[in-house]
């Protein structure tokens, strides 16, 4: 039954791709609607499929199509795949609903059809990556996903920043494919088959090489710190539904990749767990610290995705450490924490991206310094963004907290179980950094919500911003509802799926919160006066309340930026020009203090610079003069004759 349902959803998705492509000739809204509706329906079916698999827990494998003797396309539905199918389904469904309206406002008349087709293709590729059973089809759909998302990122190609984002994104995806290919080929060399079959134990260096290659490949795509640089460029540059899909789902596909290989193929060692844990912690801390200084709303969300991916990697790292210590129940606990956090992050991050997309659409700017006061002008978007902000800052009743507490519990129990003292101190430091990130993310989203929605509008556009049409609210509303329900019923959901976890039952807590607030309200109703009046904000006696006096995003994050100043290295550059030769009479000059992008200026640019220099130097071979070319032939012939004489 599952396989038929799955095939039906694939067929509908394929229809979603083909219809806009065929009709790309005319710029009709109806074709785009049909394609998005197809994506919506197929994600609905996918959600059903994944829920059935999750609840029943039955594993079905199914060979779909044999390309040629060496390579068959076969699907494999188990619970791990079901979780990620659920993620894709929910986010893609809501993004489809959101885009029915959002796309109509985009520029590029006929190209919007391509955008719908691209979204459907992107979703199809991700679905097939998640269910593919052998490594070859995994790589095939992995690259298809990369190419599909590249074309989507390059949608409004004429802007300068999209070009830069496109180059960053394309080069990094090719790098990640390089490593994934290397990993898979080494696995093929070790196991001799392309199936995801456990590696014969006895950790030969090849297996470790395979793991390292796959880990780097997947971290590039997941945006782990040293490789994260494409994320803050790609997400702001692409249209909001696309960046919601990419941030919410594509990063999770990389997480799926590493989980699939860790659980099914490798028998992990201890130091693997430590490596993943450290990568996760560093990405979490640096991700949120960079998010704090960002004043482009989608850039901030992109950096906070890096932070959440770091948290997921912490969960995976812990589960690998526990498996290395053969503590299966704790391992399942932290693995569940990682999976649940991927689901939750997909929900609230795409909610935040969609709502910020509406805000950007309404105010025509992405800079939160020019927003403000939108809570009155866009009430529904404000409420939805608020739910997303509360969820992402892991505040109790909602789903962000439900998954972070799982990771906290596994951290606390890991401290108790680990014997080696130095390792225990490392775990405590990681726990401290993890706590720091969750607190900083709360600060970051207070800043975001405060400077976007509260107080007075700081620019004429945000003063005239109007609420977005209904469809652009339904999509995020579904996600917000999902955030609340998944958070409240997390305990029940887990017991439904068959795990009883040592975590508080958030439903009881939610009800208690409601009870207490209601109690307070009733007591106040009877005891307190009901008189209410509105007047100017207190300005030490002066009645003029200007938007200028408000605390902007920069101001809000300034204390944290000074506290963490060693991380935000600043670069001071100054240039002078003089009238005379002895540089005495100063003519003009400019000085600049700039927050240095450490990774970009010390890692990415030098490497690409070196490559281009090498390219230019080697291109000198092609100097256009026939004599030199013939000289190359002459020299090669002589060397070959000498070698022949010497060898033969």
């Amino acid at each position, binding site marked *: 039954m599952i396989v038929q349902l799955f095939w039906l959803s694939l067929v509908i998705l394929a229809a979603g791709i083909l219809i806009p492509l065929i009709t790309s000739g005319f710029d009709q809204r109806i074709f785009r609607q049909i394609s998005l509706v197809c994506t919506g329906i197929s994600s609905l079916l996918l959600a059903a499929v994944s829920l059935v698999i999750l609840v029943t827990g039955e594993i079905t494998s199914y060979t779909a199509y044999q390309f040629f003797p060496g390579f068959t396309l076969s699907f494999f539905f188990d619970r791990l795949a079901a979780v990620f199918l659920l993620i894709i389904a929910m986010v893609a469904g809501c993004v489809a609903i959101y885009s029915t309206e959002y796309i109509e406002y985009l520029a590029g008349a006929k190209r919007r059809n391509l955008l719908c087709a691209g979204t459907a293709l992107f979703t199809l590729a991700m679905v097939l990556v998640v269910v593919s059973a052998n490594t070859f089809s995994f790589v095939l759909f992995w690259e298809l996903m990369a190419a599909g998302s590249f074309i989507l990122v390059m949608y409004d190609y004429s802007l300068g920043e999209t070009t830069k984002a496109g180059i960053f994104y394309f080069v990094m995806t090719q790098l990640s494919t390089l490593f994934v290919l290397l990993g898979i080929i080494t696995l093929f060399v070790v196991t001799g088959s392309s199936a995801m079959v456990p590696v014969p134990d006895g950790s030969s260096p090849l297996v470790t090489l395979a793991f390292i290659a796959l880990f780097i490949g997947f971290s590039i795509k997941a945006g782990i710190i040293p490789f994260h640089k494409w994320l803050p460029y790609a997400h702001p540059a692409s249209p909001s539904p696309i960046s919601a899909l990419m941030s919410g789902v594509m990063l999770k596909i990389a997480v799926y990749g590493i989980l699939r290989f860790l659980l099914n193929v490798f028998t992990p060692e201890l130091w693997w767990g430590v490596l993943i844990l450290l990568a996760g912690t560093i990405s979490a801390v640096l991700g949120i610290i960079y998010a704090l200084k960002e004043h482009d709303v989608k850039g901030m969300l992109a950096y906070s995705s890096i932070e959440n991916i770091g948290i997921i990697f912490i969960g995976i790292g812990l589960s690998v450490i526990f498996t290395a210590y053969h503590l299966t129940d704790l391992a399942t606990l932290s693995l569940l924490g990682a999976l649940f956090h991927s689901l939750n992050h997909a929900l609230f991050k795409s909610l935040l991206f969609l709502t910020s997309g509406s805000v950007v659409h309404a105010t025509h700017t992405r800079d939160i310094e020019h927003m403000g*006061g939108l*809570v009155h002008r866009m009430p529904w978007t*404000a409420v939805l963004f*608020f739910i997303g902000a*509360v969820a992402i*800052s892991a505040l109790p009743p909602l789903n962000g*907290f439900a998954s972070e*507490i799982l990771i*906290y519990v596994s951290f*606390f129990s890991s401290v*108790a179980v680990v014997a080696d*003292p130095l390792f*225990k*101190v490392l775990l*405590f430091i990681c*726990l*401290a*950094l993890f*706590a720091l990130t969750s*607190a*900083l993310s*709360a*600060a970051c989203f*207070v*800043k975001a*919500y*405060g400077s976007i*929605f*509260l*107080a*007075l509008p700081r620019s004429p556009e945000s003063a005239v911003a109007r609420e977005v049409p209904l469809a652009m609210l339904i999509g995020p509303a579904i996600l917000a509802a999902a955030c609340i329900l998944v958070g409240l019923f997390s305990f029940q959901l887990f017991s439904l799926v068959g795990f009883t976890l040592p*975590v*508080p*039952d958030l439903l*009881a*807590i939610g009800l208690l919160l*409601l009870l*207490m*607030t209601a109690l*307070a309200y009733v007591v106040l109703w009877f005891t*307190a*006066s009901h008189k*209410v*009046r*509105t*007047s*100017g*904000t*207190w300005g030490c006696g002066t009645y003029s*309340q200007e938007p200028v*006096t*408000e*605390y902007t995003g920069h*101001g*809000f*994050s300034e*204390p*944290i930026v*000074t*506290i963490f100043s060693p991380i935000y290295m600043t670069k001071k550059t100054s240039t002078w020009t003089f009238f005379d030769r002895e540089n005495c009479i100063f003519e003009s000059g400019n000085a600049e203090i700039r927050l240095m992008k450490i990774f970009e200026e010390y890692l990415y640019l030098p490497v690409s610079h070196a490559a281009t220099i090498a390219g230019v130097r080697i291109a000198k071979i092609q100097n256009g003069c026939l004599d030199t070319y013939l000289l190359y032939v002459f020299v090669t012939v002589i060397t070959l004759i000498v070698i022949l004489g010497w060898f033969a």
Partner: protein
Amino acid sequence: MSADFILYLIINTLIVVLVSPLFVSLVKKVKAWTQGRRGPSVFQTYFTLIKLLKKEVIYATGSSWVMRITPLVNIGALLVAALFVPLAFVPEPVAGIGNIILFLYLLALAKFFMALAGLDAGSSFGGMGSSREMSISAIIEPTTVIVFAALAFVFKSLNIFDMFATSATSGFLSTPTLILIGISLFIILIVETSRIPVDNPETHLELTMIHEGMILEQSGRNLALMELSAAIKLTLLMALLINLIVPFGLITVLSAAGLVAAIILFLIKGSILSVIIGLFESSMAKMRFFRLPSLFAMAFFFSTLIIIIEVFA
């Protein structure tokens, strides 16, 4: 949901709501004494709360629903957090109530809403208050989590109820851990309830007020709720400190006499601790904001010291 658990819910909430204003005015009284003045009566906080309930509520022009629901959410979160810290009677934990991480995050929920309310009015005081509040809480959070992890490690459970039960029955901990936990919890109490070295609770001078800055725009019954929730937070953290270090008098089996004795003992221990807090506050001047991280580094040092002693000793 056994009968005595519901009874516990009612008793604990009642004690907390009634007792907490007392401790706040006690601390003010002690500070007044040290400054050579008589200071307001011990029940002054009760009078201000009642007065505020009578006053009309004034909302800033640009403010939104955030300003209106923050007091309610604040008091709700704090009351639920109160259920997590049994003051007198320690029942069996039910449905995860008492989980120490949840307790921490309930306080964070309250802080989140208060910070947003600070920004809502659009005044620079509120903005500065919430920005500084979020920065401090971000820096102190690692220390709190490390202390709670140490507690969980020492008491072998994540639930405050079990911690109090074990400390009540098994008597005093080994002295070094006891002292270190006490000091770290005391520092967390100072920071969380924005006491002197970190922030000055009484003043309205824009440079020194962090907690006050956020509730500057609140008025009438909302201000009463905010004051009450601040007081409850102080009591909870004091109770956490007291019931772990001096568990004398905590009862685990419900009996009328035992309960009354426990409440009276808690009152005494609480007032002693308030006096200590008052003396501590008046012995220090408020630190410059950007020297606070070094204070928190010391707190972090104490909490890691607990771990090292527990782990290696």
